[in-house]
């Protein structure tokens, strides 16, 4: 019996330090590595995923041991000595491999659990793999399944729904205050790294413009140029605050830069349009009393961290649900894979024919008054038709070409006869 096995070999941010991942020669896009994989012996289908946090190799073969070693060699090259291979990588087969892929695609294995980027990366890698003809019926099904598992996890759990970084939390809050951010203006006070990050996030959400105010104007000009905005000096803060909507402050000043008394009179000229202050400086730049003004919202770094912390623990809870979904889908996939051999398919085909016979006979005989000899004849007739119909499909399944374990042909027979729908779960 030829049985194909799915294997998965990988390194990720947990198993392998960055220094080693950097050395592994898989960073040159997909074309090169995929064509090198083609030369690996006994590998029938293969798939490669390479991101900055992980490399995953999935392949199908009927000789797991031999291919595993050559795949390890392919993965590590000269970066790691042979005895360290096992230490830095993980290797799964069949059900475990399927489960791992589903976990990765559902973003349960990511550095930030629930982030959405990984699914796009898996899809992109799959585009390359199928473009170069690397995947076959088994991996095609597996990868499509992994997309739908990710989708299911996303829609049935709240794993990706809340912000888990300081700057995304700031964006989430801004959305709840302003709704649409596309006509909102941002002012950065101080040109620190955190402010930059927050500004990048806000620009990603499509804010209208960014202005930068800094003690040294040259630094403000440089940063403003990056964001296509304008620079201003700290003395202009008052007039700036009349126009902008979101203010991110991160100066190194030791005392408060904006006081509640400065802002209060501005609200009238602003016609009470809301103002959102984000204070990510330590010590704080902004007067805590600002939060007491109507239509003014103030969050400092501690408040934002608290929001993030809360969302993180919420995600952990949701991850438990997600793991259950992954386990469920893994079982489904494994039973599909097991059914792709000749013997169970023949049995399922016979079962189906018998069931149809029984059903139709019961229907017909109930309406006829026949003696037992006549009944026998009718039953025989029905069974004869069914088995004549099955004769060729069965011969096809038992033929040499299917015996080799050609999943594509078996899958076709199963689809044509609709065997997936009535398999006992």
């Amino acid at each position, binding site marked *: 019996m030829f049985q194909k096995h799915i294997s998965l070999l990988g390194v990720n941010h947990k198993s392998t330090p960055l220094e080693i991942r950097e050395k592994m020669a898989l960073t040159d896009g997909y074309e090169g590595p995929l064509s090198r994989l083609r030369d690996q012996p006994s590998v029938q289908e293969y798939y490669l995923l390479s991101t900055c946090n992980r490399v995953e190799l999935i392949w199908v073969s009927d000789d797991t041991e031999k291919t595993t070693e050559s795949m390890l060699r392919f993965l590590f090259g000269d970066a790691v000595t042979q005895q360290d291979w096992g230490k830095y990588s993980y290797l799964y087969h069949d059900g475990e491999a399927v489960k791992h892929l589903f976990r990765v695609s559902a973003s349960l294995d990511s550095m930030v659990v629930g982030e959405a980027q990984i699914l796009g990366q898996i899809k992109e890698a799959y585009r390359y793999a199928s473009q170069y003809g690397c995947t076959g019926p088994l991996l095609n099904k597996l990868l499509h399944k992994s997309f739908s598992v990710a989708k299911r996890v996303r829609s049935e759990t709240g794993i990706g729904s809340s912000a888990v970084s300081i700057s995304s939390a700031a964006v989430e809050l801004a959305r*709840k205050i302003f709704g*649409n951010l596309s006509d909102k203006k941002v002012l950065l006070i101080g040109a620190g790294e955190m402010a930059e990050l927050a500004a990048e996030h806000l620009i990603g959400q499509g804010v209208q413009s960014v202005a930068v105010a800094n003690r040294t104007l040259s630094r403000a000009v440089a940063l403003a140029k990056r964001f296509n905005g304008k620079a201003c000096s700290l003395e202009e803060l008052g007039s700036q605050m009349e126009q902008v909507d979101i203010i991110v402050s991160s100066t190194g000043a030791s005392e408060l830069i904006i006081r509640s008394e400065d802002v209060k009179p501005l609200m009238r000229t602003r*016609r009470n349009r*809301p103002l959102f202050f984000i204070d990510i400086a330590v010590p704080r730049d902004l007067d805590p009393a600002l939060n007491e003004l*109507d239509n003014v*919202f103030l*969050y400092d770094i501690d408040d934002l961290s608290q*929001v993030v912390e809360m969302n993180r623990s919420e995600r952990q809870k949701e991850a438990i649900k997600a793991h259950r979904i992954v386990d469920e889908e893994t079982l489904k996939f494994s039973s599909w894979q097991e059914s792709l051999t000749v013997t169970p398919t023949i049995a399922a085909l016979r079962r189906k024919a018998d069931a149809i016979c029984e059903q139709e006979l019961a229907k017909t005989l109930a309406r006829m008054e026949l003696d037992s000899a006549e009944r026998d004849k009718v039953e025989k007739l029905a069974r004869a038709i069914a088995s004549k119909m099955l004769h060729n499909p069965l011969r096809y399944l038992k033929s040499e070409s299917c015996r080799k374990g050609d999943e594509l042909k078996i899958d076709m027979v199963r689809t044509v006869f609709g065997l997936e729908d009535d398999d006992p779960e």
Partner: protein
Amino acid sequence: MNRNMLLYDINQLLFFGVMGVSFLACAAYLVFFISQKNHIRVWARSILTVSWLLQTAYIAARYLAIGNTPITTYHETVFFFAWATTSAYLSFRWRYTVRNFGTFVSLLIFGLLLVSSFTSREVIPLEPALQSWWLPVHAGISLIAYGFLALAFCGGIMYLLQERELKSRRLGYFFSRLPSLDALDQLNSHCLALGFTFLCLGMVTGLFWSKQAWGTYWRWNPKEVCSLVIWLIYLVQIHQRFTVGWRGRRAAIMIVVGFGVVIVTLWQVLT
């Protein structure tokens, strides 16, 4: 006589139907609010639409039974109020959506219907002096105004809940479920503008009706004074909003308070 008995029975049946269906709509909206599953919202909205149809049928049947627009007794007025709120919500929802607005509105609608079910459903014949087509026009328009102001009230409550979570920096249950402050503020603005327009029309038609019934436009009776107070409360809000840009928490509180005054004086304004 026989016909009247039949109409009375249909009336009873319709009223129980309205109560049952509205309760279901309310429950469905609450389940949606808790679970946030979209197909439940679609269900809830359909049930509320059925409730609106039944409410309309009940009002029509009562009109046939008593011969004048059923908008004069406590029961009829509160019921019509609920109908106007449902109509306002459905018409509004048709134009744009505000997340989870339906939950709050359906609670209010069911509350109004519940109040109407506890009042006497007895038919009180109308004084001959009041029998005029100004009556249904005036009362109908005023109650439609109240319907929109009721929506603004729900929006105001939602605004205050969301604002409290944002200000306290403790993002809890409502934060993810309620829409943005800006969306709620715009909703309030729209409802207020529409509600106030109808309120003005209601005042004007009331003047004409008074002229026809008593020969004078204004008599300074409690009912008229109450309407004037309500009208002034909303006039101030509209004025502040569109001249100095009043918005946010204070505006939301005013909307809630204004509606509170409407509810309290509704008993005075009636009869």
